[in-house]
């Protein structure tokens, strides 16, 4: 895999940059449309006004010519030429001499098909002459006389130029700013994606404690990062759980395996009778069975903790489950002169697996019967099984408890006994793998619940708080 880098080609490939370009094109198109409209309304308006003014003047002069012939026309032109303004006139005789007007000579420009033409002329000012732009129409009268009527359009030209320049600049700036902005935005985006990529590479490299950076802006990238981080937390927890299981298996299966092997070796070394061999073999089988029990319990815990058993969940009547489990253990309890009392309402449905819930309750009852005998001979010889529907942090739950009246567990060791393989000193000599309570804890977690141990004064109460819907 390539190390991600912020290069220009990378930049051009980012989706942000592509978006920026698309927006830019749209924006430029609308700006051009808008500015074209402005141009038509300003420069176009001025041009139309000029042409109309010239046409009006031509109309006026035509009227004069019709009434008084050439002399009146020349007269009017001479008079109008005296007025300061932007109107331009020229009357020439057939020989080309100037009879009247503001121009010195006939402009050397051929008129367009509509009779209009644009030209430059010299205008007298206080300090000499200046070249100005003009627009005019020209006519030939009878007898070859020439008439030109026009207008100085220098100012208009300048305004038009101004507007055109402004439009070009505006479009140019829009494109440039959009481009820079797009680049900047995608660069920012790319830098954050790069960071995420780098962190992912580290994580893939095996550093599971790494997390993706969160910018704190709460945007989509942050949300993505947060979700991925939650996923990583889950993976890390599973990995840690895995490692713990392997460690525990290594630790707690090796020693009995070793014992088993030693016994077989020693039996082989000495001269033994057939009966001795039989005895050794029987002990070996018993030990192997114990090992298998431990192994199965470990597997069950691992499976419950991995959460893969969630697929096999359904609605379970906890009430029936508890009655069945109590019924299974009742004769054993009676053998120890202990009474099982049940306080469970009918039809207590929860989302879970009957098999695991049964096993958890069976383990609790097993423990209660094994370790819950009252130390005081006058003490109550009962084990209470109760299930109470209740709300826990706004979630409909069931508090399932098994209470004995034995010696209990000292407060500082209560959390400890939920861990794997923990057996308190006092119970070293009773059989058991030390996995009973950790399976209970794993089952509770699988069902989205918790386990609590407390003092039943005297005795131990184990309470499973299980959400009804399994979450």
């Amino acid at each position, binding site marked *: 895999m390539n190390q991600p880098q912020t290069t220009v080609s990378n930049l051009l490939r980012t989706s942000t940059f592509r978006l920026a370009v698309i927006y830019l094109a749209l924006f430029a198109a609308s700006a051009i449309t808008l500015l074209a409209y402005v141009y038509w309304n300003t420069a176009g308006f001025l041009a139309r006004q000029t042409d109309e003014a010239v046409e009006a003047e031509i109309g006026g002069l035509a009227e004069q010519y019709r009434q008084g012939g050439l002399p009146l026309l020349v007269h009017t032109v001479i008079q109008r030429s005296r007025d300061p303004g932007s109107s331009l006139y020229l009357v020439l005789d057939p020989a080309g001499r100037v009879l009247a007007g503001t121009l010195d000579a006939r402009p050397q420009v051929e008129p367009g098909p509509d009779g209009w033409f644009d030209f430059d002329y010299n205008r007298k000012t206080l300090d000499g002459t200046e070249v100005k732009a003009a627009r005019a129409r020209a006519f030939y009268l009878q007898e070859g006389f020439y008439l030109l009527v026009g207008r100085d359009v220098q100012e208009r030209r300048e305004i038009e130029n101004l507007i055109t320049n402004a439009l070009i600049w505006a479009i140019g700036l829009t494109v440039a700013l959009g481009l820079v902005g797009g680049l900047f935005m995608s660069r920012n985006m790319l830098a954050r994606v790069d960071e995420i990529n780098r962190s992912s590479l580290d994580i893939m490299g095996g550093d599971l404690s790494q997390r993706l950076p969160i910018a704190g802006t709460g945007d989509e990238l942050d949300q993505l990062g947060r979700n991925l981080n939650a996923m990583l937390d889950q993976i890390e927890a599973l990995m840690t759980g895995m490692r713990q299981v392997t460690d525990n298996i290594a630790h707690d299966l090796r020693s009995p395996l070793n014992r088993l092997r030693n016994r077989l070796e020693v039996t082989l070394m000495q001269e033994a009778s057939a009966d001795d061999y039989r005895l050794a073999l029987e002990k070996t089988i018993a030990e192997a069975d114990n090992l298998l029990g431990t192994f199965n319990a470990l597997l069950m815990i691992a499976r419950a903790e991995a959460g893969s058993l969630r697929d096999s969940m359904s609605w379970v009547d906890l009430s029936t489950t508890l009655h069945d489990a109590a019924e*299974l253990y009742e*004769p*054993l309890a009676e053998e120890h002169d202990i009474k099982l009392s049940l306080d469970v309402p009918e039809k207590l449905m929860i989302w879970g697996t009957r*098999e695991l819930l*049964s096993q958890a309750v069976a383990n609790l009852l097993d423990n209660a019967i094994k370790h819950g005998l009252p130390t005081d001979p006058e003490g109550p010889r009962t084990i209470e099984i109760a299930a109470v529907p209740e709300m826990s942090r706004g979630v409909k739950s069931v508090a399932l408890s098994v209470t004995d009246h034995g010696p209990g567990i000292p407060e500082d060791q209560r959390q400890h006994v939920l861990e794997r393989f923990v057996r308190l000193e006092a119970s070293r000599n009773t059989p058991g793998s030390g996995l009973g309570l950790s399976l209970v804890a794993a089952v509770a977690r699988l069902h989205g619940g918790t386990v609590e141990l407390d003092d039943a004064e005297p005795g131990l109460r184990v309470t499973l708080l299980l959400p009804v819907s399994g979450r």
Partner: protein
Amino acid sequence: MRILVIEDDLEAAAYVVKGLRESGHIVDHAADGEEGLTLALSSTFDVMIVDRMLPKRDGLSVVETLREEGVRTPVLFLSALGEVDDRIKGLKAGGDDYLTKPYAFAELLARIEVLVRRSNPDQVRTRLQVGDLEIDLLARKVTRDGQEIDLQPREFRLLEYLMKHAGQVVTRTMLLENVWEYHFDPQTNVIDVHISRLRAKIDKNFEQPLLHTVRGAGYSLRAAD
């Protein structure tokens, strides 16, 4: 009876074959799925022991094919996969029982004997009898030597199961699975206590014991010869 063992682990197979032969059965062995299927289709067996994971054709597919061909021979699956799902898959494919490795040989033997008996059931009976012990499944009444014996519902189911398999060995795990419908082994052997309770009710005041403990295997309900 004639038993077909389809198992690719040759050492495990040798052990099963030897154990079954010593118990007086005729045993054929196939080392892969194809061979097993051919054998199963070409001759008749009373029961088949099929490993779930086999080379060439896996156990599930062997049994599915057999069932499609109309072979109804009871099948016991052996598997190292012990999850509830795997068990259900095995039973859906047409298996009749499922045993997770590692297992005790006594367990295997007890289960196949029960399977064979089940595959040729007498017509559905409402009354069962072992010696002078009688059970009426409809009236839910138990009598021995004409005396009525009062049983709890679960004790009744336990006795019913034992009576249905009278003369056979029934293991603790089989009782847990069939009478209590649990697929786990409780840490303490609670079944023994239930059995001794039942024994106290049906055997205590009578001369001939009917409910026997089979060492290293389980229990058996049978009348004296």
